[in-house]
């Protein structure tokens, strides 16, 4: 059995149909929700670009995820790798807050606060500065390449790239002290990896906000896929009032409303304004990021037509069918309850946390060696992190290896508040005590003035392998 040539060709044609994306040129809208979005863009991006420049105390960057030195500065707080639990808790709290917001207000996050939305908003703004309004953009796209097109498109891309590079620089500034990084820019002597990540993040910004746009929401965003499970009939969504609007139809302005038509004049502005290219009048769709641009667009038209506002509006399914608004309902109480419980748990844990951390590492140069008295000796370094807000002296002790002795280089190790010190210790054991190639021991540091300030870690006492062959 074989397909005829025509059929084969038809199938190949079909194969190459990758649901080609139509370019979307969202129409600029003015109105209350557009204003809110601008406020949110200023707020969120303002925080993003300014925050790394703020210092907390002398020479301490207030927010610095100092990955190379394995510590996070968050204002007065310093978090270490073993504090991962708090970062996880913050993530869980953020997720639950998102669930709560979604249950009550729908996709508020998407429309006003998501980085994809706010950066795209800035990119759209730049695009309009260079290419003009939506009709001009469409005209420009259809135009053959000439001087005007090259200048306008080129200018836009230059602006996008510069802004993206600044964004990438700021991003790396959260991980490498930003003032040092800034000082290195003129001579171009940033580290190779700092340079790499600046360009990586800049490229991601340029690609996502300049090119991919709504496709990020549609194909990349997990939240967009599952947000509907948090919805119920009382969730605020952006909806077109079909009972009022249909049947749609054009009409002359200023005349009385035709008796056979609803309030929708079918001008299509709600579709032109939509950044994801959907028609809200077709009902709720998962592409809708609840930016409310269609509301702003429609309200202007309703105003011009002298019709009541709210043909497209924030509403709930229940309100739409005359059952009223119900904000407080079991789902909201459950989300709030879980959110409160986890927040309280985290606070309690933060308040009762023991602010000392110990990491044990082996001496890099020697696995084992013979001590002057003939015993076998291993050298360890205890990294003692004093996370308390005052200085302490620490003593080192060992558990888990009967008969072996721990011999610190100093009797006490002093660590200032927030300081990480290295405490080298020798662990010695007589040959007859050693029964394994590798013996588990536990090394511990304890503050001399407060026995509750203590932490330890397991380590391995290593003996020569040929002893056990």
């Amino acid at each position, binding site marked *: 059995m074989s397909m005829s040539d025509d059929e084969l060709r038809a*199938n190949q044609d*079909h194969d190459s149909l*990758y*649901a*080609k994306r139509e370019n979307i040129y969202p129409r600029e809208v003015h109105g209350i929700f557009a204003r809110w979005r601008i406020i949110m863009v200023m707020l969120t991006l303002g925080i993003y670009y300014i925050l790394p420049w703020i210092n907390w105390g002398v020479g301490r960057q207030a927010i610095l995820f100092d990955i190379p030195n*394995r510590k996070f500065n968050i204002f007065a707080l310093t978090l270490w790798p073993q504090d991962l639990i708090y970062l996880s808790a913050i993530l869980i709290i953020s997720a639950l807050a998102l669930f709560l917001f979604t249950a009550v207000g729908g996709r508020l996050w998407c429309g006003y606060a998501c980085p994809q939305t706010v950066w795209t908003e800035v990119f759209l703004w730049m695009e309009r500065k260079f290419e003009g309004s939506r009709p001009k953009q469409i005209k420009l796209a259809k135009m053959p390449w000439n001087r005007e097109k090259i200048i306008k498109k080129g200018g836009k891309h230059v602006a996008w790239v510069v802004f993206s590079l600044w964004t990438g620089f700021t991003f790396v500034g959260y991980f490498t002290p930003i003032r040092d990084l800034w000082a290195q820019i003129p001579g171009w002597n940033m580290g190779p990896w700092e340079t790499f990540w600046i360009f990586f993040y800049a490229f991601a910004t340029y690609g996502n906000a300049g090119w991919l746009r709504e*496709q990020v929401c549609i194909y990349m965003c997990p939240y967009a896929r599952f947000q509907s499970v948090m919805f119920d009939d009382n969730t605020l969504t952006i909806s077109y009032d079909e009972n009022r609007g249909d049947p749609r139809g054009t009409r002359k302005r200023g005349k009385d409303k035709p008796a056979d038509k609803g309030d929708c004049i079918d001008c299509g502005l709600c579709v032109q304004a939509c950044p994801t290219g959907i028609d809200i009048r077709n009902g709720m769709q998962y592409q809708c990021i609840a930016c409310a641009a269609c509301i702003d667009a429609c309200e202007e038209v309703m105003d011009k037509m002298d019709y009541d506002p709210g043909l497209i509006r924030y509403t709930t399914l229940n309100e739409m069918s005359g059952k009223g608004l119900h904000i407080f309902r079991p789902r909201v109480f459950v989300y709030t309850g879980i959110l409160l419980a986890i927040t309280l748990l985290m606070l309690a844990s933060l308040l009762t946390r023991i602010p000392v951390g110990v990491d044990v590492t082996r001496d890099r140069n020697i696995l084992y060696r013979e001590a002057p008295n003939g015993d076998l000796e291993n050298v360890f370094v205890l990294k003692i992190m004093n996370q308390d807000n005052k200085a302490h002296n620490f003593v080192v002790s060992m558990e888990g290896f009967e008969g072996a002795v721990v011999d610190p280089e100093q009797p006490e190790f002093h660590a200032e508040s927030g300081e990480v010190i290295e405490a080298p210790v020798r662990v010695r054991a007589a040959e007859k005590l050693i029964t394994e190639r590798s013996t588990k021991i536990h090394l511990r540091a304890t503050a001399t003035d407060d026995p509750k300030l203590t932490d330890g870690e397991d380590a391995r006492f290593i003996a020569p392998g040929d002893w056990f062959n």
Partner: protein
Amino acid sequence: MTSNIPDNDEVPLIQRIIAILWPSFLAAGAAMILLFVVFSPDELLPELRATGVSNMAIYSVTFIFLWATTLFACALSCYFMRPCSRCN
């Protein structure tokens, strides 16, 4: 005669590319965090650290390695998702 090629071409190319690049990026990020919360580069690669390779380089290369690995898995998944009928 009807073709037995199923009509599944609704998955756009960009969606397939993203389905390879993006989940692998997320998974590599998560693996990266878990790995380096437990181990520091000093413990993991003391010899390399001693030769003066910076932590930043170790973290970066590890991330790229993890991403390449997960990307490979995602790419294979995507490849095996092709309808079997296409192989004939």
